[in-house]
Structure formats: structure tokens, C-alpha cells
């Protein structure tokens, strides 16, 4: 069908005085394929909508150029209006003659405005409609990791009516918190019961994810347990947790030296009887500034518990007390009021064995003095580290980790729980150092994000916004390797040919593949090569 274009110029209530609109119209009217050029005053208001509607209904045009304010304001609304008028929104091209022309320059800018519109016209000639269609997706979610985070995520997903499979490496659910006594372990027990009762949660224990193919809406996941399982899921939530470690480089962890981990201390605190009550206990943490929330909370809670249960002298050595989580400042105050002594160092203290006891040799920066303290027991900093298998899984998923090896790249667009691949999420401590409040926010966030991406029923996507032409594709795999969102797959088109196919669900419309394709087989409608070049060619023509 031949191009027949309608052009609407908006003079913003007559305020864009440095543009001579009649002159612009005169220049445009002489171009080919132009059905009409209208000067309107307030395209963004109801009257503008009416002006567009009546023209489009009578003029039978198939391309629309609107020269007005920045697309930031009305692009979406103009698109919706065209759709209402049965014109595909893909056939709309905008020229920003207000923010980036009239307002950005002093003096007459008629020539520049005309050029910007000519660029939009050049692009509009080559625009193609982008149809939208419904696609069926699998709404089932796989949650990896049966600790607190994974269990709570599954439970909340199931409460929103989303079917969930929970896979855990160990033979039982519960994770680390199950080992603790008291409040947490009873909570965990209750959660396990609730999960076992929930109709739409399936539990797979002693099983591990060994392969992930496919894309959002249809991830083909291979799991190895008692037997090999291959199942499809719409989304995958990783809640694989963390591990802790006492760094041998920081502490002389020799047998007979009374240096223990926080975990061991908790066990001692929970034991019904104690062999010998330690008179003096030293805690050391924040040696490296890395992942401080976790050791800070453990230290404050345990120092208080020691003080309250054993009544020992408690000294805490640290570089900084990291109080940037809710309630931690209060906990810190409580500890000080209860008599826990805090000593801050800038240089890491020397720790040595001293006849069965432990000597801490530190420079207290606040007192400006050197302090030598001999403790019966020293509780070492437990570093928070990525869980075993994080590296393997991330390379399996082709997803980047952060600088410390935790899941999720340091990119603010991904926070809180997203990854660069749509439909793959990370919650809780598998993505870094979070306190419980933040972990809970993560869990709710992941539920919301899954629900948003995979609503019940079908999902509407733009069918072919970014498309690899099967005729031109040489299956060089370049796009598959470079796509940051892993949205491209190789598919068999007929018995002998395989080509790249871009999943519109997984694609985030960046165009990196279209730029790099050595065969020029990928077209990004709206930003295709010819559409970009048409804009370049229109510059300076007027």
C-alpha cells in the first residue's frame, strides 16, 4: 500500500513563537506522500484528540507524524489514540520541537524545527505496523532452595494462587535456621507444615538443578534427585542462601585455642549445661568492611545473650558498628547499657594464643591507647560468602554475579530481585548481605514481580518488534552470545536450516543484536537501520 501520511504540528497554545508554523507547513506540504499538514494548538488536550480523530477518520492515512512536545509526555497516549482509531501505533513518528528545539534555543528556530520534522517524516515512511498478540505461558514457578527464604516465597506465591515447586538440595526443608532453637526453629517447623499442607506446592528434596534452557514462560529445567526430572516452569526464583566462614587468615584457628564461630557460640548458649563459664569474652568483627550487616547483627544479639545468661565480661572489637538496618541502633544501645564494652580499631588487632586463653592486642582509636586483653573465649567474625554452587549455577544460567560472587550484578535497574534475564529472580542472602527486614521485602517483591510477569491466563506481547529474518540469518550465534537478556535461541525452521529466534517475552528491546548482526538479519522495527539512516539523510535537506 502506498504511503499516505498525515502531519500534525502543535504550536503549544501558540507559545512556540520562535517557530514559524505556516512556513513549516508550506515546506512540508510539497513533500511526496503527504495527505495533509495541520497546525493545531493543544494536541495534548481533548480538543487535540478530537482534531486528530476527525482527520484520521476522514483522510484514510497510514502514517502519522506528530510534531509537539517531548515523547515523554504524550507518546503513550497518542499511540493509544491511534489504536482506538484502528491505526497501528507502530505507524506513529514523533518530532520533539518543544523541549529539544523551541525551548533549547533562543531566536528563530524554524529551520531546525522543519528539519526535526523532516527526520520524523523520513522515518515514518519506512515504519511498519507491529502487531500484538496473546501468547500462552506456563504460570508454574520453581523455587530453588528450601531455607527460610525459599519456603516463605513458595508460601506467598501459593497464597496468590500460583503453583510452585520447591526444590532443596538437602533431604529436609528448613535450611540454616532449623538448627537454631527457640523462636526461629518453631517458626520454621510451622512453615514446613504449612508447605506440606499447601495444595499447590510440590516439594522435591535431595534434588538439584542441573540445567536450565528456554525462556520466561517456558524454562526447561533439568533436575537431578533420586531420578532425572525435566520440567517446564514459567519463572525461577533462586533462594539459595549463603554460607559463613571464619577466615583462617584473620584468626589463629589452632586446636586448643579458644576461638569459636558465632554458630558454635549459639550452640553453647543453647546447651543446658556449661562446662566452665567464661569470665571474659571478646567478639571481633568488621575486619574488612565487606558484608557487615550479618556479622554485626550476630555479634550484637549474641553479646547481649552472653551478658544476660552468663554474666561474663563482654568486649566487642570492631572497626565500625554497622547500624544501617532497622532497629540495630537500638540493639547497640541496649548492649552498651547492659555493660557490653565496644572498642573500635582502625588497624586490625593482633590475636594470639596465651596459655589456653586468647590475647587480643588492639589499638583503640577512640581512647588513642593500645589495649591488651586476655579472653577466655573469642568469638570470631563469620564472613558472609556466596553459597556453594553459586558460581556453577550462574554460569549455567549465563547470568553475571556481583564483584563478591553473589547473584545479581551491581546494577540499580535490577534491584531488588530481578536479574538480567526476565523470569529469573534472586531473593534474600543469595544476592548479598541483607538483614531480615530486607529479606522479607525481597520475598514480597519477588511475589509481586512473578505475578506481574505471569498473570493468570495469556500474556500480550508485541509479536515482532525485534525479529531475525530466517532468510538472512546465517546462524552464526553472535546474537545468542551477545544478548544481555538471553532472549535469543536457535530454532529449527525446516529439516535443514536452523536460525536465531528472538523471544518477544524475554526480549527487553535494546537493539544490541540488531547492531551487531554480521548478516544484517535482525530488524528492530522503529529503530531499524533504514529508519535510522533515513533520519540522518533528512538532516540538512531543507
Amino acid at each position: 500500500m502506498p504511503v499516505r501520511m498525515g502531519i500534525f504540528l502543535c504550536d503549544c497554545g501558540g507559545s512556540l513563537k520562535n517557530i514559524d508554523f505556516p512556513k513549516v507547513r508550506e515546506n512540508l506540504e510539497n513533500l511526496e506522500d503527504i495527505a495533509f499538514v495541520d497546525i493545531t494548538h493543544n494536541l495534548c488536550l481533548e480538543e487535540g484528540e478530537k482534531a486528530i480523530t476527525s482527520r484520521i477518520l476522514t483522510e484514510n492515512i497510514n502514517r502519522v507524524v506528530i510534531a509537539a512536545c517531548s515523547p515523554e509526555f504524550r507518546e503513550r497516549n497518542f499511540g493509544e489514540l491511534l489504536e482506538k482509531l484502528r491505526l497501528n501505533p507502530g505507524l506513529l513518528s514523533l518530532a520533539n520541537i518543544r523541549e529539544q528545539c523551541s525551548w533549547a534555543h533562543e531566536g528563530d528556530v524554524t529551520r531546525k524545527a522543519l528539519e526535526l520534522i523532516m527526520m520524523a517524516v523520513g522515518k515514518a515512511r519506512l515504519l511498519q505496523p507491529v502487531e500484538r498478540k496473546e501468547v500462552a505461558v506456563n504460570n508454574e514457578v520453581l523455587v530453588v532452595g528450601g531455607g527460610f527464604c525459599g519456603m516463605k516465597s513458595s508460601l506467598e506465591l501459593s497464597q496468590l494462587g500460583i503453583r510452585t515447586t520447591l526444590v532443596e538440595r538437602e533431604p529436609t526443608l528448613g535450611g540454616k535456621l532449623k538448627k537454631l532453637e527457640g523462636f526461629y526453629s518453631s517458626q520454621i517447623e510451622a512453615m514446613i507444615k504449612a508447605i506440606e499442607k499447601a495444595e499447590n506446592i510440590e516439594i522435591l528434596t535431595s534434588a538439584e538443578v542441573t540445567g536450565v534452557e528456554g525462556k520466561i514462560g517456558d524454562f526447561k529445567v533439568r533436575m537431578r534427585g533420586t531420578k532425572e526430572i525435566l520440567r517446564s516452569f514459567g519463572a525461577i526464583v533462586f533462594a539459595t542462601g549463603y554460607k559463613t566462614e571464619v577466615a583462617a587468615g584473620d584468626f589463629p584457628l589452632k586446636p586448643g585455642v579458644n576461638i569459636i564461630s558465632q554458630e558454635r557460640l549459639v550452640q553453647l548458649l543453647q546447651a543446658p549445661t556449661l562446662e566452665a563459664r567464661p569470665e571474659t569474652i571478646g567478639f571481633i568483627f568488621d575486619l574488612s568492611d565487606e558484608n557487615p550487616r550479618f556479622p554485626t547483627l550476630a555479634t550484637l544479639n549474641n553479646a547481649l545473650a552472653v551478658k544476660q545468661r552468663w554474666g561474663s565480661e563482654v568486649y566487642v572489637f570492631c572497626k565500625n558498628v554497622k547500624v544501617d538496618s532497622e532497629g540495630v541502633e537500638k540493639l547497640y544501645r541496649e548492649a552498651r547499657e547492659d555493660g557490653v564494652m565496644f572498642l573500635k580499631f582502625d588497624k586490625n588487632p593482633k590475636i594470639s594464643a596465651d596459655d589456653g586463653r586468647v590475647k587480643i592486642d588492639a589499638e583503640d582509636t577512640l581512647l588513642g591507647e593500645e589495649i591488651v586483653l586476655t579472653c577466655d573465649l573469642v568469638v570470631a567474625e563469620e564472613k558472609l560468602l556466596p553459597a556453594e554452587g553459586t558460581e556453577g549455577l550462574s554460569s549455567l544460567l549465563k547470568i553475571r554475579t556481583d564483584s563478591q560472587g553473589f547473584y545479581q550484578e551491581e546494577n540499580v535497574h535490577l534491584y531488588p530481585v530481578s536479574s538480567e534475564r526476565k523470569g529469573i529472580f534472586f531473593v534474600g542472602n543469595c544476592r548479598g548481605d541483607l538483614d531480615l527486614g530486607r529479606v522479607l521485602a525481597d520475598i514480597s517483591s519477588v511475589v509481586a514481580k512473578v505475578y506481574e510477569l505471569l498473570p493468570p491466563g495469556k500474556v500480550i506481547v508485541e509479536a515482532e518488534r525485534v525479529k531475525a529474518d530466517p532468510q538472512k540469518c546465517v546462524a552464526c550465534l553472535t546474537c545468542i552470545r551477545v544478548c544481555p537478556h538471553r532472549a535469543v535461541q536457535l530454532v529449527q525452521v525446516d529439516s535443514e536450516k536452523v536460525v536465531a529466534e528472538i523471544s518477544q517475552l524475554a526480549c527487553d528491546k535494546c537493539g544490541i543484536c540488531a547492531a551487531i548482526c554480521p548478516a544484517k538479519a535482525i530488524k528492530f522495527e522503529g529503530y531499524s537501520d533504514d529508519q535510522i539512516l533515513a533520519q540522518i539523510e533528512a538532516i540538512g535537506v531543507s
Partner: protein
Amino acid sequence: MKAERSIVVIGGGIAGITSALELANSGFTVYLVEKEARIGGQAASFCCKATEVCTKCSACLLPQKLSEVASYPQISILTNSMVVGVKGELGNFQVEVCQKPQYISPQKCIACGMCTEVCPTMPKAIQSPPPEAVPYSYSINESQCLRLKGKKCNLCREICPTNAIVFGQKPERQELNNIGAIIVAIGFDVFNAREIGYLGYGRYPNVLTGFDLERIFRNQGSLKLSSNGKEPKKVAFIQCVGSRDENHGYCSQVCCKYAMRLARLIKHQKPDAEVTIFYIDLQTAGKGFAEFYKECQGNIRFIRGVPVEISEAPSDEVEVKFENITEGKVDRENFDFVTLSVGIAPRKDSWELAKVLGINLGDDGFFDIKEPFNSTETNVEGIFLAGACQSPKDIPDSIAHGISAAERAMEVLKRCQ
């Protein structure tokens, strides 16, 4: 009982708009009630703190989210509006909203600016919106406008091409019915540094707050001293102003981060500037932040202990009196610019809204939560909290909290269906 799929979000800052977008994306209708003339809240006027690389402050996430909210058909934005009454219960609230006179209709104003051109007062009574404003519409300063002062001026109305200007407006009340749930996201007040007299804020022109600095970098691109128009050579940051003291039993969670980022930005723009940060405990948690702190240590001086006094010194400098711990004496040092890293305080009007909604305030003045660790639910079923009105939060944490509040609301509504 039938639960309604409409939700009122009170407060259009980063947490509120995140909740609104999340709900709208999941098919809910949202009324976004904003007290000010525009949404965006505090973070909308923050600057980019990137040096050669992004320092992950997240302030640039705002513009995109704001324009998304503005053009979302399922989100109605009510500016200049306050919630003044609530009836009903979870699943079916009636929310009474009072809208102050706006004089210029944001639905009709096309921001052409012709009204300002004709406005006869000096300074102009009709002001252009700041660039980040959503809705992007002009506003009238009541104390300047001749017409509103009873004089006979009609110039702006005559020239307005869209008849957007209406005088003689009275506050309007409207009732939003069939509201399933309410999300409170009214944000925070920046701690008023004048409350600590010895720091000299408001008295010395070269003592400003971190939030002032955000706006200066945003609107001017660089920091220039008002006295000589040059970039400062010697800059100090003072941490924990309005946090972790006898009146504020909490860490504001944002100040160490913004101070270090702004310090790096100053060093980036003027590499020979000397920057010092006075602190109590440095908060370096968060993805990649420990590494960033290490980089900062390379060219920023960190001194443990916050100064005891700031006073005037010759040639527009200020003298900072602080305890020199290593030498065990009180030291004095002159700086030509001091930034007070002020913290996050609960909003002064929190208690009014708390009364209207029947929700509780906690010890520190932030809204209280139903049970420990469940940071989005209040004592009233169906009323949720999002963002820094619950407890101090930085931008990423506010976003996460905004999403989780939306999710809690969706789930609770689903349960009572």
C-alpha cells in the same frame, strides 16, 4: 465479601509511585494522593553522582518512573490533595480527599509559559514547574498574585490558550469509594539542621546540608561558593547530623552513602580539592559499597569523631573544632565549605494522618508496624506502609519496600475475596 480492585496510595514519592506502578501493572486501579503540587517527592530533585562510573545512588530511576506513572491510564494522580477521612474496612474503604485550590488545572495546563510572560508582579506570581515536575504544569504563588490579593488583574487568564486558570476556587472535598486497601507512603522530613545551633546552618553561607548539595549539583551541575563563585578547595562532611543522637535513636541509613558519593563527585570535578569526612561509624553495607569505600579511602580523609563546633573564620571560611583522637587534643581546622550530612526524620504531619487512618506511631515518630519484621502492615487491616515513613530507607530500599507493600495489599485483598 467482594474486595475492590481500587487502591489509594498516599504520597507520590519513590515508594508511593513504585507501589502504584506495581499495582497498576497487576490490573488494579490506583488513586495516587499527593500533598504537594507534584509527585516525585524528595528524590526527584537529587543529582547524578556518577564519576567515571555510576556510583549506584539510583536517583536517575525517578524520571522514567514518574513519566510512566503520569501516562498510566489506570493511575489517577490527585495533587495538592490530602486524605482527611477514612471509613469502612479492608476490602471496602471510603476515603475522603480534600484538594487545595490549585488555580491552574494540571489537566489543562500545557506548560506553554505564556502566563508567566504576562504576569506583572516581580518576582512572578506564576511560576514554571521544576524540570522534574509531574504533572508538568505551572503554579500560582498565592502571596504574590495580585488577583488573589484582591486586585483586578486578569492578564494570565486572558492569555492562557487552554483556559487552565480558574480563580475563586475553594478547597474541594471528594469521596473515593470502594477502595480495597490503602498504602501510606508519605516519606520523610529532612532533619532541620538549624536545630543544632552550634553547627551554624542558616548562619554561615558556606555551611549547607547534603540535601542542599543534591539540589545544587542537580540544578547547577557543580558546586560553587556563593562568596567567590569558585569551586571550594577544602570541603568537610559531618556525619550523623540528626541521626544516632539523644533525640534520634536510629541510623538514617542514607547519609554515609550520599556523603561518600558527593565527596567523590567533588573530587571528580575538582581533583585538587581536599575532602574530609567526620564520622562516628561508617556504614558500608550494600552491594559493592565496601569496594566503593576502599576507593574513597584513596583520596578522601576520614576522621573518626564528629565536630563539636563550627564557627566563622576570616575570608568566608568556617572553622571546624574537632577532637583529634590520635593526638588527644581538640583541633581546629578551617574549611571553605562544610556539608552537614543530615538524616531522615519522621514527617511533622505524620500524627495527623495517623489520627485520620487510626494507625499508630512508633517511638521515633515513624509509623508503627503490626508485628516485628512485618514492615508493611499496620495495626489497621488493609492499611499498609511503604518507604521511609515506616523507617529510614535509601532509594533502592524504598523501591523494594514499595513493591512489597503493593504485594501485601494484593495478597490480603485476594484472601478476603
